[in-house]
């Protein structure tokens, strides 16, 4: 079934056991993002340390795609340098815009390549990006705060 492209095992796993889904009350920046088309919401906290992403924690309501995508993001970005997170984020955004023509760089994106199927469902791309846009926003704020 074509749907299995979208709902890969990895995604359903992350959905059922989301990583770092418990807000740490200590953070450099906190953001609250909303998906206006479906009402999904996310709160995401970021803490930096010497140019590295020390911690990302989050909470929110949303579909399996938005929840899994955010969970995967935390696994992927925590511990990375800000430069690396930017490279990864851009690669992920490009993958989402690829309309099913790309499979994604598994070295770079790890579990996030499981979300490649989302790019064939335009209405769901925003779900997959919710956590990523929140992270982008929060990291900019955290950098500003730390500098």
């Amino acid at each position, binding site marked *: 079934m*074509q749907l299995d492209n979208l*709902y890969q095992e990895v995604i359903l796993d992350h959905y059922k056991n989301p990583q770092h889904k418990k807000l740490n009350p200590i953070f450099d920046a906190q953001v609250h993002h909303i998906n206006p088309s479906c*009402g*999904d919401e996310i709160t995401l906290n970021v803490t930096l340390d010497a140019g590295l992403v020390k911690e990302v924690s989050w909470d929110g309501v949303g579909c*399996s795609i938005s929840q899994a995508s955010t969970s995967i993001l935390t696994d992927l970005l925590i511990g990375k340098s800000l430069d690396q997170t930017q490279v990864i984020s851009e690669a992920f955004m490009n993958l989402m815009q690829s309309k099913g023509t790309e499979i994604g760089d598994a070295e770079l994106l790890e579990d996030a390549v499981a979300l490649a199927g989302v790019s064939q469902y335009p209405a769901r791309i925003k779900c997959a990006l919710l956590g990523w846009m929140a992270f982008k926003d929060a990291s900019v704020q955290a950098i500003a705060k730390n500098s």
Partner: protein
Amino acid sequence: MPSTSALNMSFDASVIAQDFPILSRKIRDGKRLVYLDSGATSQKPNVVIDAQNDFYRLHNAAAHRGAHQLAEEATDALEGARQIVASFISAHVDEVVFTKSATESLNLVAYAMGNAQKGNRFHLTKGDGIVVTEMEHHANLIPWQQLAARTGASLSWFEVTPDGRLDLSSIKSVITEKTKVVALTHQSNVLGTIIPLDEIVKRAHEVGAVVVLDACQSVPHMAVDVKALDIDFLAFSGHKTVGPTGIGIFWGRRELLAELPPFLTGGSMIENVTMTSATWAPAPKKFEPGVPSMAQAVGLGAALTYLAHIGMNQIHDHELSLTEYLLNEFSTIDDLKVIGPRDLHMRGGIVSFSLGDIHPHDLGQFLDSQGIAVRTGHHCAWPLTRKLGVPATTRASFHLYNTKDDLDSLVAGVRGAQKYFG
């Protein structure tokens, strides 16, 4: 031209469905299309598509703007459509204004009131009140928020009960002597609830307020008689009424339209124009500047003629029997919670529900893979879904072309989703 199905005395949705070409489309790997998203927009019968084609191929010209034959024909086509709309809702022909959508119609009345000067009965100021409800679509909420902000009037609202009805227990303190406008939906696009309009109209008129009815979800599905309802203004959309996109209706009582200032200004809505000032033509022209949306008006005329042939009461009965059937089937599904009233007397053909932990987006996606089109999300009534504690729901909404087969597919789809995500 009535379709063959429309001439049948007995109502057979599967025959009616044949009038709608899109319903024979295949979806995702060859699945039959099960279209249960008519609350968002309805499909179009051939008569509507053909009527627009005829207009473009034979009669297209700028209505009311020329003395040549095509212009005369275009004018007749436009005004003929206006007459059809008027009959459909039991109005006078000069009370019917063509807009682009219900959204424009509702903005029209809100902005036009904002344009009213002191001395005009629609003039609003600090101390005046605007009343809405918690179950409004954004299109009948935000324009009033904006009007309140522009004029200093206060905005208040009827609350919604946990089972999805309007709470009228405090009607006298919601609609007060200061209330100038009561704007509310006839039927909730999320819950299917039909509101107790009579009581509200009575109270509104008691205090001298006008009633603006958002009939987007009622006019396409049941007989609506503006005179019998005793309302003052009404809005609905063509595209939900098996008509074209890009056309809506604004209706107002004749004597109120005479006093309501214009909204959009431009050509053909004027009486006289100088460089510094302008005066207005009588309604409906006053509210229709520019070259009219003629093809869409003609298409809407064909749509309403088609619906009237089939019979609005038959359509309503059919949708209610579908609703009853679905509510029964749904009651056998574990974890499925219907959101909105169960009483069939106070609802139309819209069923919103949640399904355990399965997010509506995921459920909708699974149903789509089975060829079933439903809507998921807050349905442009965010304050309502938040109030009910379900920021997103899954909504199945029907129209005359839906069959029990469609609902059986939905029920099977819901069970399939439980297995898939279980």
